């Protein structure tokens, strides 16, 4: 009796395991299908895409389409756009991390007049997305002559209330005794910041870098506004620029190859940084 029951349990567990797997695989297929279609479309000829039925298996044009995309593209080589995007995304991520580390450090560790006011000012900007302040920001950037420059792409986006807030919360969990021990060891504030606070925040920095890199990479509206020179296009907006205006024929295989290429760097960052920040999580002290 007992054995029968226990095998029954195992059977049931096995069945539910299969069920959950089946559901998961089904979900993954749904999510993955458009990406697969894009990949297939990037490996066939223009003609094969436009005539029904749509191909579902990769064709033989992989190298032709991708090399065309990378070296010539539609308006500008995709390689240029990738480099632009990379510079912008890394600039935004690194800039945001540096600025928010410093401002969180100031807010947590120093008593200065208006500290609370500054904190709340930063906090309030959380509520204002880029789109809300885009017109005045454009005015400022245009006034400084930063249109079509990397500085113009990066600087307006590097202030980050979210990251500041996150670091503030983290710094507040660092025990006071550690600060005091550093004071007794003779570390002045910036030394303490560089030697103790930053290394202790490395897990948070890694996690934020991933999030902020993707945020920077996916910027669409801002680059669209301030880059008029195709040489300065970023890839996310560049894809849209590839769509023909008027009666031109869209070069779908190249556009699809560009889309696939646009996905590669964020995936690489996520996969490689994931290891780093999981190790960071495991490494973090008790």
């Amino acid at each position, binding site marked *: 009796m007992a054995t029968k029951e226990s095998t029954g349990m195992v059977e049931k567990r096995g069945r539910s395991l299969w069920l959950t797997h089946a559901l998961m695989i089904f979900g993954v297929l749904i999510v993955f299908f458009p990406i697969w279609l894009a990949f297939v479309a990037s490996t066939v000829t223009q003609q094969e895409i436009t005539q029904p039925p749509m191909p579902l298996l990769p064709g033989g044009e992989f190298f032709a389409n991708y090399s065309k995309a990378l070296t010539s593209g539609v308006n500008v080589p995709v390689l240029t756009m990738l480099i632009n995007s990379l510079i912008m995304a890394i600039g935004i991520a690194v800039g945001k991390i540096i600025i928010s580390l410093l401002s969180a450090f100031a807010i947590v560790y120093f008593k200065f007049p208006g500290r609370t006011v500054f904190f709340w000012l930063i906090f309030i900007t959380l509520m204002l997305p880029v789109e809300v302040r885009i017109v005045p920001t454009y005015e400022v950037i245009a006034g400084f002559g930063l249109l079509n420059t990397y500085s113009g792409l990066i600087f307006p986006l590097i202030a980050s209330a979210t990251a500041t807030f996150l670091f503030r919360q983290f710094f507040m969990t660092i*025990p006071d005794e*550690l600060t005091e021990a550093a004071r007794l*060891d003779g570390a002045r504030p910036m030394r303490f910041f560089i030697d103790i606070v930053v*290394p*202790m925040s490395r897990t948070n920095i890694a996690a934020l870098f991933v999030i902020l890199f993707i945020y920077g990479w996916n910027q669409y509206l801002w680059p669209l506004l301030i880059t008029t020179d195709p040489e300065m296009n970023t890839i996310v907006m560049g894809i849209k620029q590839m769509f023909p205006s008027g009666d031109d024929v869209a070069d779908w295989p190249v556009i699809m190859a560009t889309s696939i290429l646009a996905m590669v760097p964020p995936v690489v960052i996520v996969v490689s940084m994931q290891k780093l920040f999981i190790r960071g999580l495991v490494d*973090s*002290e008790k």
Partner: protein
Amino acid sequence: MATLSIKQVKKSFGKTDVIHGVSVEISDGEFIVIVGPSGCGKSTLLRMVAGLETVSDGEIAIDGKVVNDLEPMDRDIAMVFQNYALYPHMNVRENMAYGLKVAKVPAAVRAEKVNAAAERLQLTDYLDRKPRELSGGQRQRVAMGRAIVREPSVFLFDEPLSNLDAKLRVQMRLEIKELQSSLGVTSLYVTHDQVEAMTMADRMIVMNGGRAEQIGTPLEVYEKPASLFAAQFIGSPAMNLFRGYIENQTLRLDNGATLPVSTEHSGPVQAGVRPEHLYPADQGPLDMAVGYIEPLGATTLQHGKLQGTDVAFTVCLPGIVDPNSPGAKRFDFDNHHLHLFDADTGAALSR
């Protein structure tokens, strides 16, 4: 090596006075324990010496030099914290060497000092480990190592053993005391544990409510407590207190017992006798309504109330007494073990 002088030091946070003027002169190489209940200001006093809190009034001098306005790093002190405060991302070696690194001591000298300290503290095998890979006792040693590599004039300890288990605490207590006496560094040690105070101190400061109730050697404090608070705080179990009234050199207790005392004082008093100084005696002045008996092995505690009153008192008897036995009923003590305190001020009366 240095003297430490604390003169009328006061501390207030806003309008709240926390320390109401503490003075003590500490000579070179002395081990001073500040003991008191939580909130008595003992840690605040230590932190003022460390320079982590400002001094509201009074003067702190290390080796004759007033340090009130000096940064902690310029005071030539080292401190061991309760939670060790080790830098979690640095290994033991880096933790111990950090202060020297900041002070720009050459790497070779640094390594030499760290190795010497590690050897002294039996940490040599752990130098490359991170703090989280160490046990509590080892972390405590690293914290001490960090303090000794800097060769300060004064060591400050802020309840360093509170996070350790009882057995380790006894062991570390001895180690700290041994280390301190072999290095001969003037030390200020804060604890709420009276056993630590009794065993480690050259002299102890009993603090209560921001005041130093008594400053003296452990045995002085034990044998001649200067106040009701010191009497109750030092000694375990705590001293028994009985209300009484003195008239014509006769002490009359609440239960009606009378005792001759040699004091000129007259008026209400608190009479104190330590549990370990009471012994069973058929004609003793203290009669107990026995409550319960706790055999501890080496000794037995018998708790009860003074017959006819609600004054609880405890007797510490040698050996084992059967907890189910009725227990002894009457107790006596030697006259020189009687402590008398003014009932209003709590100050000890001279005998």
